[in-house]
Protein backbone atom coordinates (compact mmCIF):
# COMPACT_ATOMS: atom_id res chain seq x y z
CA UNK A 1 0.00 0.00 0.00
CA UNK A 2 2.68 2.41 1.03
CA UNK A 3 4.79 1.39 -1.97
CA UNK A 4 1.89 2.27 -4.26
CA UNK A 5 1.72 5.67 -2.64
CA UNK A 6 5.45 6.10 -3.02
CA UNK A 7 5.32 5.22 -6.72
CA UNK A 8 2.41 7.59 -7.39
CA UNK A 9 4.11 10.46 -5.59
CA UNK A 10 7.24 9.83 -7.61
CA UNK A 11 5.23 9.87 -10.86
CA UNK A 12 3.59 13.20 -10.08
CA UNK A 13 6.77 14.91 -8.90
CA UNK A 14 8.57 13.49 -11.93
CA UNK A 15 6.01 14.91 -14.34
CA UNK A 16 5.99 18.25 -12.59
CA UNK A 17 9.79 18.56 -12.37
CA UNK A 18 9.97 18.28 -16.12
CA UNK A 19 6.76 20.05 -16.98
CA UNK A 20 7.69 21.56 -20.36
CA UNK A 21 8.78 18.18 -21.63
CA UNK A 22 5.65 16.60 -20.18
CA UNK A 23 3.44 19.10 -22.02
CA UNK A 24 5.32 18.54 -25.30
CA UNK A 25 4.98 14.81 -24.85
CA UNK A 26 1.25 15.04 -24.17
CA UNK A 27 0.61 17.35 -27.14
CA UNK A 28 2.44 15.21 -29.69
CA UNK A 29 0.80 12.14 -28.24
CA UNK A 30 -2.62 13.80 -28.53
CA UNK A 31 -2.06 14.85 -32.16
CA UNK A 32 -0.82 11.41 -33.10
CA UNK A 33 -3.72 9.65 -31.41
CA UNK A 34 -6.28 12.07 -32.87
CA UNK A 35 -5.00 11.31 -36.34
CA UNK A 36 -4.95 7.61 -35.58
CA UNK A 37 -8.53 7.82 -34.33
CA UNK A 38 -9.63 9.83 -37.38
CA UNK A 39 -7.88 7.33 -39.64
CA UNK A 40 -9.58 4.36 -38.00
CA UNK A 41 -12.99 6.09 -38.06
CA UNK A 42 -12.55 6.92 -41.76
CA UNK A 43 -11.53 3.35 -42.49
CA UNK A 44 -14.70 2.03 -40.86
CA UNK A 45 -16.72 4.72 -42.60
CA UNK A 46 -15.38 3.95 -46.04
CA UNK A 47 -15.97 0.23 -45.56
CA UNK A 48 -19.49 0.85 -44.43
CA UNK A 49 -20.19 3.27 -47.26
CA UNK A 50 -18.89 0.79 -49.78
CA UNK A 51 -21.25 -1.95 -48.65
CA UNK A 52 -24.06 0.57 -48.31
CA UNK A 53 -23.64 1.90 -51.83
CA UNK A 54 -22.95 -1.48 -53.35
CA UNK A 55 -26.49 -2.52 -52.49
CA UNK A 56 -27.90 0.68 -53.99
CA UNK A 57 -25.59 1.22 -56.87
CA UNK A 58 -27.03 0.71 -60.31
CA UNK A 59 -25.88 0.34 -63.83
CA UNK A 60 -27.84 2.70 -66.08
CA UNK A 61 -28.38 1.58 -69.64
CA UNK A 62 -29.54 4.65 -71.53
CA UNK A 63 -31.41 3.91 -74.71
CA UNK A 64 -31.26 5.85 -77.93
CA UNK A 65 -34.29 7.99 -78.74
CA UNK A 66 -34.83 6.01 -81.93
CA UNK A 67 -34.87 2.64 -80.16
CA UNK A 68 -37.60 0.29 -81.41
CA UNK A 69 -40.01 -1.39 -79.05
CA UNK A 70 -38.72 -4.74 -80.26
CA UNK A 71 -35.13 -3.88 -79.39
CA UNK A 72 -36.23 -2.62 -75.98
CA UNK A 73 -38.27 -5.69 -75.12
CA UNK A 74 -35.52 -8.03 -76.33
CA UNK A 75 -33.00 -6.21 -74.17
CA UNK A 76 -35.28 -6.33 -71.15
CA UNK A 77 -35.89 -10.07 -71.36
CA UNK A 78 -32.18 -10.74 -71.95
CA UNK A 79 -31.30 -8.66 -68.90
CA UNK A 80 -33.87 -10.48 -66.80
CA UNK A 81 -32.43 -13.82 -67.86
CA UNK A 82 -28.83 -12.72 -67.27
CA UNK A 83 -27.24 -14.57 -64.30
CA UNK A 84 -25.18 -11.49 -63.39
CA UNK A 85 -28.27 -9.34 -62.96
CA UNK A 86 -30.35 -9.21 -59.84
CA UNK A 87 -32.99 -6.69 -60.72
CA UNK A 88 -34.06 -4.74 -63.78
CA UNK A 89 -36.25 -1.66 -63.77
CA UNK A 90 -37.39 0.24 -66.77
CA UNK A 91 -37.54 4.00 -66.54
CA UNK A 92 -39.46 5.76 -69.24
CA UNK A 93 -38.79 9.32 -70.35
CA UNK A 94 -41.80 10.47 -68.35
CA UNK A 95 -40.56 8.81 -65.17
CA UNK A 96 -37.11 10.21 -65.75
CA UNK A 97 -38.67 13.65 -66.09
CA UNK A 98 -40.62 13.17 -62.85
CA UNK A 99 -37.46 12.22 -61.02
CA UNK A 100 -35.61 15.12 -62.58
CA UNK A 101 -38.27 17.55 -61.46
CA UNK A 102 -38.20 16.21 -57.96
CA UNK A 103 -34.42 16.33 -57.81
CA UNK A 104 -34.19 19.92 -59.04
CA UNK A 105 -37.36 21.21 -57.42
CA UNK A 106 -35.48 24.20 -56.08
CA UNK A 107 -34.32 25.22 -59.57
CA UNK A 108 -37.59 25.73 -61.52
CA UNK A 109 -35.83 27.50 -64.41
CA UNK A 110 -33.80 24.41 -65.09
CA UNK A 111 -36.89 22.21 -64.91
CA UNK A 112 -38.70 24.55 -67.30
CA UNK A 113 -36.00 24.28 -69.89
CA UNK A 114 -36.15 20.49 -70.07
CA UNK A 115 -38.90 18.67 -71.92
CA UNK A 116 -40.01 15.17 -70.97
CA UNK A 117 -39.03 13.64 -74.29
CA UNK A 118 -35.50 15.04 -74.21
CA UNK A 119 -34.63 12.77 -71.33
CA UNK A 120 -33.61 9.28 -72.46
CA UNK A 121 -35.46 6.18 -71.38
CA UNK A 122 -33.28 3.72 -69.54
CA UNK A 123 -32.96 0.40 -67.76
CA UNK A 124 -31.82 0.62 -64.14
CA UNK A 125 -29.94 -2.61 -63.55
CA UNK A 126 -28.80 -3.86 -60.18
CA UNK A 127 -26.03 -6.43 -60.39
CA UNK A 128 -25.62 -9.41 -58.10
CA UNK A 129 -21.98 -8.44 -57.76
CA UNK A 130 -21.43 -4.72 -58.38
CA UNK A 131 -17.81 -5.43 -59.36
CA UNK A 132 -19.02 -7.21 -62.48
CA UNK A 133 -19.86 -4.01 -64.33
CA UNK A 134 -17.25 -4.54 -67.04
CA UNK A 135 -18.63 -7.97 -68.00
CA UNK A 136 -22.17 -6.60 -68.27
CA UNK A 137 -21.03 -3.57 -70.18
CA UNK A 138 -19.03 -5.68 -72.66
CA UNK A 139 -21.99 -7.97 -73.24
CA UNK A 140 -24.55 -5.29 -74.06
CA UNK A 141 -22.58 -2.33 -75.36
CA UNK A 142 -22.71 -3.41 -79.00
CA UNK A 143 -26.44 -4.06 -79.06
CA UNK A 144 -28.54 -1.83 -81.21
CA UNK A 145 -30.66 0.79 -79.52
CA UNK A 146 -28.24 1.38 -76.61
CA UNK A 147 -26.79 4.83 -76.29
CA UNK A 148 -24.57 4.56 -73.22
CA UNK A 149 -23.94 2.28 -70.24
CA UNK A 150 -22.99 4.10 -67.06
CA UNK A 151 -21.72 2.56 -63.84
CA UNK A 152 -22.64 4.69 -60.83
CA UNK A 153 -19.78 3.08 -58.98
CA UNK A 154 -17.35 5.05 -61.10
CA UNK A 155 -18.86 8.27 -59.86
CA UNK A 156 -18.65 6.98 -56.32
CA UNK A 157 -15.11 5.84 -56.96
CA UNK A 158 -13.96 9.45 -56.92
CA UNK A 159 -15.64 10.05 -53.59
CA UNK A 160 -14.05 6.92 -52.15
CA UNK A 161 -10.72 8.00 -53.62
CA UNK A 162 -10.90 11.26 -51.70
CA UNK A 163 -11.94 9.50 -48.51
CA UNK A 164 -9.16 6.95 -48.91
CA UNK A 165 -6.50 9.59 -49.39
CA UNK A 166 -7.85 11.46 -46.34
CA UNK A 167 -7.57 8.24 -44.38
CA UNK A 168 -4.01 7.65 -45.61
CA UNK A 169 -3.03 11.22 -44.84
CA UNK A 170 -4.42 10.87 -41.30
CA UNK A 171 -2.47 7.65 -40.79
CA UNK A 172 0.76 9.16 -42.14
CA UNK A 173 0.40 12.13 -39.77
CA UNK A 174 -0.41 9.67 -36.97
CA UNK A 175 2.77 7.70 -37.65
CA UNK A 176 5.05 10.74 -37.99
CA UNK A 177 3.63 12.33 -34.83
CA UNK A 178 3.70 8.95 -33.15
CA UNK A 179 7.44 8.62 -33.82
CA UNK A 180 7.96 12.15 -32.45
CA UNK A 181 5.90 11.25 -29.38
CA UNK A 182 7.93 8.10 -28.77
CA UNK A 183 11.21 10.00 -29.06
CA UNK A 184 9.89 12.52 -26.57
CA UNK A 185 8.87 9.73 -24.22
CA UNK A 186 12.35 8.21 -24.49
CA UNK A 187 13.94 11.61 -23.91
CA UNK A 188 11.70 12.44 -20.96
CA UNK A 189 12.56 9.16 -19.31
CA UNK A 190 16.27 9.69 -19.87
CA UNK A 191 16.05 13.12 -18.27
CA UNK A 192 13.96 11.75 -15.40
CA UNK A 193 16.37 8.88 -14.85
CA UNK A 194 19.30 11.28 -14.91
CA UNK A 195 17.74 13.63 -12.39
CA UNK A 196 17.04 10.67 -10.13
CA UNK A 197 20.35 8.87 -10.69
CA UNK A 198 21.39 9.13 -7.03
CA UNK A 199 18.13 7.65 -5.80
CA UNK A 200 18.32 4.93 -8.42
CA UNK A 201 21.90 4.07 -7.45
CA UNK A 202 20.92 3.80 -3.78
CA UNK A 203 17.84 1.76 -4.60
CA UNK A 204 19.91 -0.71 -6.59
CA UNK A 205 22.48 -0.85 -3.83
CA UNK A 206 20.01 -1.72 -1.10
CA UNK A 207 18.19 -4.22 -3.30
CA UNK A 208 14.97 -2.53 -4.36
CA UNK A 209 13.23 -4.72 -6.91
CA UNK A 210 13.55 -3.78 -10.55
CA UNK A 211 9.86 -3.08 -11.04
CA UNK A 212 9.91 -0.77 -8.06
CA UNK A 213 12.80 1.21 -9.53
CA UNK A 214 11.33 1.28 -13.02
CA UNK A 215 7.62 1.70 -12.27
CA UNK A 216 7.67 5.49 -11.61
CA UNK A 217 9.44 6.16 -14.92
CA UNK A 218 7.20 3.87 -16.94
CA UNK A 219 4.08 5.24 -15.26
CA UNK A 220 5.13 8.79 -16.12
CA UNK A 221 5.06 7.77 -19.77
CA UNK A 222 1.78 5.90 -19.35
CA UNK A 223 0.23 8.91 -17.63
CA UNK A 224 1.25 11.15 -20.55
CA UNK A 225 -0.17 8.55 -22.95
CA UNK A 226 -3.49 8.49 -21.11
CA UNK A 227 -3.81 12.29 -20.99
CA UNK A 228 -2.86 12.41 -24.68
CA UNK A 229 -5.54 9.88 -25.57
CA UNK A 230 -8.10 11.79 -23.53
CA UNK A 231 -7.27 14.99 -25.46
CA UNK A 232 -7.44 13.06 -28.73
CA UNK A 233 -10.86 11.72 -27.76
CA UNK A 234 -12.10 15.22 -26.92
CA UNK A 235 -10.84 16.41 -30.32
CA UNK A 236 -12.75 13.63 -32.07
CA UNK A 237 -15.91 14.49 -30.12
CA UNK A 238 -15.53 18.13 -31.14
CA UNK A 239 -14.92 17.09 -34.75
CA UNK A 240 -18.10 15.02 -34.76
CA UNK A 241 -20.05 17.79 -33.08
CA UNK A 242 -18.74 20.77 -35.06
CA UNK A 243 -17.88 19.22 -38.43
CA UNK A 244 -19.87 16.08 -39.15
CA UNK A 245 -23.04 17.22 -37.38
CA UNK A 246 -22.27 20.86 -38.04
CA UNK A 247 -20.80 22.45 -41.12
CA UNK A 248 -20.62 19.22 -43.16
CA UNK A 249 -24.18 18.24 -42.38
CA UNK A 250 -25.26 18.89 -45.98
CA UNK A 251 -23.17 15.91 -47.01
CA UNK A 252 -25.13 13.66 -44.68
CA UNK A 253 -27.00 12.02 -47.56
CA UNK A 254 -23.74 11.04 -49.22
CA UNK A 255 -21.75 10.13 -46.12
CA UNK A 256 -23.30 7.47 -43.99
CA UNK A 257 -23.80 8.82 -40.49
CA UNK A 258 -20.99 8.45 -37.93
CA UNK A 259 -22.69 7.13 -34.81
CA UNK A 260 -21.70 8.48 -31.37
CA UNK A 261 -21.14 4.93 -30.15
CA UNK A 262 -18.26 4.63 -32.59
CA UNK A 263 -16.71 7.87 -31.36
CA UNK A 264 -17.03 6.68 -27.75
CA UNK A 265 -15.43 3.38 -28.70
CA UNK A 266 -12.33 5.37 -29.69
CA UNK A 267 -11.68 6.37 -26.05
CA UNK A 268 -10.71 2.90 -24.79
CA UNK A 269 -8.95 2.10 -28.07
CA UNK A 270 -6.83 5.27 -28.05
CA UNK A 271 -6.20 5.05 -24.31
CA UNK A 272 -5.11 1.44 -24.69
CA UNK A 273 -2.82 2.11 -27.65
CA UNK A 274 -1.43 5.33 -26.13
CA UNK A 275 -0.60 3.86 -22.74
CA UNK A 276 0.66 0.53 -24.06
CA UNK A 277 3.02 2.11 -26.57
CA UNK A 278 4.33 4.63 -24.02
CA UNK A 279 4.84 1.90 -21.46
CA UNK A 280 6.78 -0.28 -23.89
CA UNK A 281 8.89 2.66 -25.07
CA UNK A 282 9.57 3.69 -21.48
CA UNK A 283 10.52 0.19 -20.47
CA UNK A 284 12.81 -0.30 -23.47
CA UNK A 285 14.47 3.07 -22.81
CA UNK A 286 15.15 2.09 -19.22
CA UNK A 287 16.33 -1.38 -20.02
CA UNK A 288 18.55 -0.82 -23.01
CA UNK A 289 19.48 2.83 -22.94
CA UNK A 290 19.52 4.06 -19.38
CA UNK A 291 20.14 0.64 -17.82
CA UNK A 292 18.19 1.51 -14.71
Amino acid at each position, binding site marked *: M*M*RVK*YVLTEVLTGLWRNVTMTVAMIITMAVSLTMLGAGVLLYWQVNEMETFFNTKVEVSIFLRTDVTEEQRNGLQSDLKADPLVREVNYESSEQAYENFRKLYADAPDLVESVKADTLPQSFRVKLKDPQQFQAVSDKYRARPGIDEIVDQRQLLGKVFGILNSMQNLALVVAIVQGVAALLLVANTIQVAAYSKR*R*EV*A*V*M*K*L*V*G*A*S*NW*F*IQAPFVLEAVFAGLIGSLLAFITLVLAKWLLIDGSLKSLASLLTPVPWSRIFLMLPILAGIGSLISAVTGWITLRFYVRV
Partner: protein
Amino acid sequence: MIQLERVTKTYPKASRPSLDDVSVSIEKGEFVFFIGPSGSGKSTMIKLLLHEVTPTKGKVLVNSKDVTAMRSWRIPAFRRSIGCVFQDFRLLPNRTAFENVAFALEVIGKSKAVARRVVPEVLELVGLGGKEHRYPQELSGGEQQRVAVARAFVNRPLILLADEPTGNLDPDTSIEIMRLLDRINRTGTTVVMVTHDSNIVNQMRRRVIEIEGGRIVRDQPRGVYG
Protein backbone atom coordinates in the same frame (compact mmCIF):
# COMPACT_ATOMS: atom_id res chain seq x y z
CA MET B 1 30.40 -17.10 3.72
CA ILE B 2 32.30 -15.74 0.71
CA GLN B 3 34.22 -17.90 -1.71
CA LEU B 4 36.01 -16.97 -4.89
CA GLU B 5 37.05 -20.01 -6.88
CA ARG B 6 39.75 -19.32 -9.46
CA VAL B 7 38.13 -16.07 -10.51
CA THR B 8 39.44 -14.14 -13.48
CA LYS B 9 37.92 -10.84 -14.51
CA THR B 10 39.00 -9.13 -17.68
CA TYR B 11 37.15 -5.95 -18.60
CA PRO B 12 36.35 -5.47 -22.26
CA LYS B 13 39.21 -3.68 -24.08
CA ALA B 14 41.57 -4.19 -21.11
CA SER B 15 44.96 -5.59 -22.02
CA ARG B 16 45.37 -7.64 -18.84
CA PRO B 17 42.89 -9.06 -16.34
CA SER B 18 41.94 -7.02 -13.25
CA LEU B 19 41.77 -10.24 -11.25
CA ASP B 20 43.79 -13.18 -12.42
CA ASP B 21 42.90 -16.66 -11.21
CA VAL B 22 42.10 -15.55 -7.66
CA SER B 23 40.80 -17.94 -4.99
CA VAL B 24 39.73 -16.64 -1.57
CA SER B 25 37.61 -18.02 1.21
CA ILE B 26 36.16 -15.79 3.92
CA GLU B 27 34.34 -17.29 6.90
CA LYS B 28 31.26 -15.99 8.63
CA GLY B 29 32.07 -13.25 11.15
CA GLU B 30 35.53 -12.49 9.75
CA PHE B 31 36.94 -9.00 9.32
CA VAL B 32 39.06 -8.85 6.18
CA PHE B 33 41.15 -6.05 4.64
CA PHE B 34 41.90 -6.05 0.95
CA ILE B 35 44.93 -3.86 0.34
CA GLY B 36 47.07 -3.04 -2.64
CA PRO B 37 47.97 -0.20 -5.00
CA SER B 38 45.44 1.58 -7.21
CA GLY B 39 44.30 -0.55 -10.11
CA SER B 40 45.39 -3.76 -8.39
CA GLY B 41 41.88 -5.20 -8.62
CA LYS B 42 40.57 -4.48 -5.10
CA SER B 43 37.46 -2.63 -6.25
CA THR B 44 36.71 -5.31 -8.81
CA MET B 45 36.49 -7.65 -5.85
CA ILE B 46 33.68 -5.57 -4.30
CA LYS B 47 31.89 -5.30 -7.63
CA LEU B 48 32.02 -9.06 -8.08
CA LEU B 49 30.55 -9.64 -4.63
CA LEU B 50 27.70 -7.20 -5.38
CA HIS B 51 27.13 -8.75 -8.79
CA GLU B 52 27.76 -5.41 -10.44
CA VAL B 53 30.16 -7.24 -12.74
CA THR B 54 30.33 -10.93 -13.59
CA PRO B 55 33.62 -12.85 -13.66
CA THR B 56 35.13 -13.83 -16.98
CA LYS B 57 36.09 -17.20 -15.49
CA GLY B 58 35.54 -18.89 -12.16
CA LYS B 59 32.85 -18.90 -9.51
CA VAL B 60 31.78 -16.41 -6.85
CA LEU B 61 29.82 -17.84 -3.92
CA VAL B 62 28.16 -15.56 -1.37
CA ASN B 63 26.07 -17.06 1.45
CA SER B 64 26.76 -20.36 -0.34
CA LYS B 65 24.83 -19.09 -3.35
CA ASP B 66 26.51 -19.07 -6.73
CA VAL B 67 26.34 -15.39 -7.66
CA THR B 68 27.62 -15.96 -11.17
CA ALA B 69 24.72 -18.23 -12.05
CA MET B 70 22.13 -15.98 -10.46
CA ARG B 71 19.17 -14.85 -12.54
CA SER B 72 19.03 -11.08 -12.91
CA TRP B 73 15.61 -10.83 -11.22
CA ARG B 74 17.06 -12.47 -8.09
CA ILE B 75 19.85 -9.92 -7.71
CA PRO B 76 17.76 -7.32 -5.80
CA ALA B 77 16.78 -9.87 -3.15
CA PHE B 78 20.39 -11.04 -2.98
CA ARG B 79 21.66 -7.49 -2.41
CA ARG B 80 19.41 -7.11 0.61
CA SER B 81 21.70 -9.53 2.43
CA ILE B 82 24.70 -7.28 1.77
CA GLY B 83 25.33 -3.81 3.16
CA CYS B 84 27.62 -1.45 1.35
CA VAL B 85 29.62 1.66 2.29
CA PHE B 86 31.67 3.79 -0.10
CA GLN B 87 34.34 6.46 0.03
CA ASP B 88 31.87 9.08 -1.28
CA PHE B 89 29.08 8.17 1.21
CA ARG B 90 26.38 8.17 -1.55
CA LEU B 91 23.74 9.86 0.58
CA LEU B 92 20.71 11.59 -0.93
CA PRO B 93 21.32 15.34 -0.41
CA ASN B 94 17.63 16.29 -0.23
CA ARG B 95 16.87 13.86 2.59
CA THR B 96 17.71 14.04 6.28
CA ALA B 97 19.81 11.41 8.03
CA PHE B 98 16.62 9.70 9.18
CA GLU B 99 15.11 9.81 5.71
CA ASN B 100 18.27 8.50 4.07
CA VAL B 101 18.24 5.43 6.28
CA ALA B 102 14.46 5.05 6.06
CA PHE B 103 14.70 5.24 2.26
CA ALA B 104 16.67 1.98 2.24
CA LEU B 105 13.82 0.35 4.13
CA GLU B 106 10.99 1.91 2.17
CA VAL B 107 12.26 0.92 -1.26
CA ILE B 108 12.42 -2.72 -0.26
CA GLY B 109 8.84 -2.57 0.92
CA LYS B 110 9.07 -2.04 4.67
CA SER B 111 6.29 0.02 6.20
CA LYS B 112 6.68 3.49 7.69
CA ALA B 113 5.95 2.03 11.13
CA VAL B 114 8.93 -0.30 10.83
CA ALA B 115 11.12 2.61 9.72
CA ARG B 116 9.98 4.75 12.66
CA ARG B 117 10.93 1.97 15.05
CA VAL B 118 14.18 0.73 13.49
CA VAL B 119 15.85 3.86 12.10
CA PRO B 120 16.33 5.77 15.41
CA GLU B 121 17.77 2.57 16.90
CA VAL B 122 20.39 2.18 14.22
CA LEU B 123 21.21 5.91 14.17
CA GLU B 124 21.76 5.67 17.92
CA LEU B 125 24.00 2.66 17.34
CA VAL B 126 26.25 4.60 14.93
CA GLY B 127 26.40 7.50 17.36
CA LEU B 128 24.12 9.95 15.59
CA GLY B 129 21.41 10.11 18.21
CA GLY B 130 19.87 13.60 18.14
CA LYS B 131 21.05 14.37 14.63
CA GLU B 132 18.30 12.45 12.82
CA HIS B 133 16.84 15.52 11.17
CA ARG B 134 20.04 17.03 9.81
CA TYR B 135 20.65 17.08 6.09
CA PRO B 136 23.93 15.58 4.78
CA GLN B 137 25.44 19.03 4.11
CA GLU B 138 24.80 19.93 7.76
CA LEU B 139 26.86 16.94 8.93
CA SER B 140 30.64 16.46 9.01
CA GLY B 141 32.29 13.89 6.73
CA GLY B 142 32.57 11.41 9.55
CA GLU B 143 28.92 11.88 10.47
CA GLN B 144 27.88 11.44 6.85
CA GLN B 145 29.79 8.19 6.72
CA ARG B 146 28.01 7.11 9.91
CA VAL B 147 24.69 7.71 8.18
CA ALA B 148 25.93 5.59 5.29
CA VAL B 149 26.95 2.83 7.70
CA ALA B 150 23.56 3.05 9.38
CA ARG B 151 21.88 2.71 6.00
CA ALA B 152 24.04 -0.28 5.10
CA PHE B 153 23.37 -1.96 8.44
CA VAL B 154 19.68 -1.17 8.95
CA ASN B 155 18.56 -4.34 7.14
CA ARG B 156 20.91 -6.40 9.33
CA PRO B 157 22.92 -7.78 6.41
CA LEU B 158 25.11 -10.85 6.78
CA ILE B 159 27.94 -9.10 4.98
CA LEU B 160 29.13 -5.49 5.08
CA LEU B 161 31.28 -4.39 2.15
CA ALA B 162 33.28 -1.19 2.63
CA ASP B 163 35.10 0.33 -0.36
CA GLU B 164 37.70 2.74 1.09
CA PRO B 165 35.24 4.03 3.70
CA THR B 166 37.86 6.27 5.32
CA GLY B 167 39.30 7.60 2.06
CA ASN B 168 37.71 11.04 2.53
CA LEU B 169 38.16 11.32 6.29
CA ASP B 170 40.87 12.65 8.57
CA PRO B 171 42.79 10.11 10.74
CA ASP B 172 40.82 10.67 13.95
CA THR B 173 37.46 10.40 12.21
CA SER B 174 38.73 7.36 10.35
CA ILE B 175 39.46 5.62 13.59
CA GLU B 176 35.96 6.35 14.85
CA ILE B 177 34.48 4.82 11.72
CA MET B 178 36.73 1.79 12.18
CA ARG B 179 35.49 1.38 15.76
CA LEU B 180 31.99 1.44 14.38
CA LEU B 181 32.77 -1.21 11.77
CA ASP B 182 34.45 -3.28 14.44
CA ARG B 183 31.33 -3.09 16.58
CA ILE B 184 29.20 -4.17 13.66
CA ASN B 185 31.62 -7.04 13.06
CA ARG B 186 31.17 -8.13 16.69
CA THR B 187 27.44 -8.58 16.10
CA GLY B 188 28.40 -11.43 13.76
CA THR B 189 28.40 -9.50 10.50
CA THR B 190 31.19 -10.39 8.09
CA VAL B 191 33.07 -7.22 7.12
CA VAL B 192 35.10 -6.92 3.94
CA MET B 193 36.98 -3.65 3.60
CA VAL B 194 39.09 -2.36 0.75
CA THR B 195 41.58 0.30 1.85
CA HIS B 196 44.78 2.24 1.23
CA ASP B 197 45.03 3.36 4.83
CA SER B 198 48.11 1.70 6.38
CA ASN B 199 47.47 3.24 9.81
CA ILE B 200 44.13 1.62 10.11
CA VAL B 201 45.27 -1.78 8.91
CA ASN B 202 48.18 -1.73 11.29
CA GLN B 203 45.99 -0.74 14.23
CA MET B 204 43.22 -3.24 13.64
CA ARG B 205 45.42 -6.32 13.28
CA ARG B 206 42.89 -8.30 11.29
CA ARG B 207 43.21 -10.60 8.31
CA VAL B 208 44.97 -8.83 5.44
CA ILE B 209 44.82 -9.93 1.82
CA GLU B 210 47.18 -8.02 -0.45
CA ILE B 211 46.49 -7.88 -4.16
CA GLU B 212 48.93 -6.77 -6.79
CA GLY B 213 48.45 -6.92 -10.53
CA GLY B 214 45.28 -8.92 -10.09
CA ARG B 215 46.89 -11.66 -7.99
CA ILE B 216 46.92 -12.35 -4.27
CA VAL B 217 50.48 -11.81 -3.07
CA ARG B 218 49.82 -12.12 0.68
CA ASP B 219 47.11 -13.48 2.97
CA GLN B 220 47.88 -13.04 6.69
CA PRO B 221 45.49 -13.79 9.57
CA ARG B 222 46.60 -10.88 11.78
CA GLY B 223 48.47 -8.79 9.28
CA VAL B 224 49.85 -5.29 8.93
CA TYR B 225 49.97 -3.03 5.89
CA GLY B 226 53.57 -4.07 5.26
